[in-house]
């Protein structure tokens, strides 16, 4: 079973994402900001990361840049999932090493489509 880390400061979003991804046969763990997520990755690299942008302590983009410098940090497929929907932001995320990008609001179809696109489903 593939392991996906869901990183979002909203408990509601984490819960919704967890439910959808569990139905897609992912093993889920959660982190509420980038710093906690980075610690979790240092313990054990997940296969996939669903990543919010705006979070306290460490934002999604800061987390992603740090992750890609870690040993084994190139392994996880990172899918941004954020209300940020400007072209500049999307380009910034891709050049920081994001594999896919979901603009909120999302639903099951979008998560499934994007995870398929990223080769995870």
């Amino acid at each position, binding site marked *: 079973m593939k392991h996906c880390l869901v990183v979002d400061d909203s408990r509601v979003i984490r819960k919704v994402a967890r439910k959808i991804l569990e139905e897609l046969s992912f093993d889920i763990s959660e982190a509420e900001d980038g710093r906690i997520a980075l610690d979790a990755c240092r313990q054990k690299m997940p296969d996939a990361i669903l990543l919010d942008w705006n979070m306290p302590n460490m934002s999604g983009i800061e987390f992603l840049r740090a992750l890609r410098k870690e040993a084994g940090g190139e392994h996880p497929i990172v899918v941004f999932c954020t209300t940020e929907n400007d*072209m500049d932001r999307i*380009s910034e995320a891709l050049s920081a090493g*994001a594999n*896919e990008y*979901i603009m909120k609001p*999302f639903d099951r179809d*979008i998560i499934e*489509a*994007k995870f398929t696109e990223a080769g995870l489903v």
Partner: protein
Amino acid sequence: MSAIPSDDFAFLSNLLKRRSGLVLTPDKLYLVESRLMPIARKEGLADIAALISKLRQPGSETLQRAVTDAMTTNESLFFRDKTPFEHFEKVIVPSLLPSRPQKRLRVWCAAASTGQEPYSLVLTMAEKAAQFPGLSLDILGTDICAEVIARAQAGIYSQFEVQRGLPIQMLVKYFTKEGDNWRLKENIRQQVKYKLFNLLESLSALGQFDVVFCRNVLIYFDRDTKADIITRIAKILPEDGYLILGAAETVVGLTVPFQPHPTAKGLYVKAAAAALTPPAKVAAG
């Protein structure tokens, strides 16, 4: 769902059959409610029965068209089912190009809806431009519904639509953001022409094509109409042309001049062309 009186159902199915060829079987009853209630409301009518009663009155031409459009519009995604686009790039284009000195391929998307299918073809080949230098696609998208044709021409999609089937790298590369929506760039849009067209009309006015995409539309027709449309498509395709049907569709069991491509699922070649294909590498002389 509220029941529809049988004579109302018969009237509606006759109307749809006559105007579009669509066969309204009882298993599609759920579509009647979901697609026609918005029209009934817009007309200030209480229910489907009242809408049908208005359709029966003289001078209901505009309403008849709106009802036909609503019943025949298909959901559309970018790169729907994926494989047809892979076949286009890996099988169809490489097989046709050597015999097309102009490097120009004419493609007809027979149920183009809001344009995702024709544009997905353009995007597929845009990504492979280096592999096929000089290739020019001349794509015609047709649909029976004027409203979806107008949307296809504009090439504007909602945030929801661009997130289903379209890789993010392609969104960045080929779209610009306009307000809350996303618009395909001019150089992509200009490779597709659109035209309002009913598949029951004569196809000869459309000209000749190398490839015809006719996906997820024949399912709405009865067997005879289906066979008739496919047979007429054969006449606008050269011997080496291709027909692509939807994932759940086939020509098997229909008397038509096509047969399945030996390896690429969903692709059909002319029966004569298949018969003429020489056996692989029989020793010469």
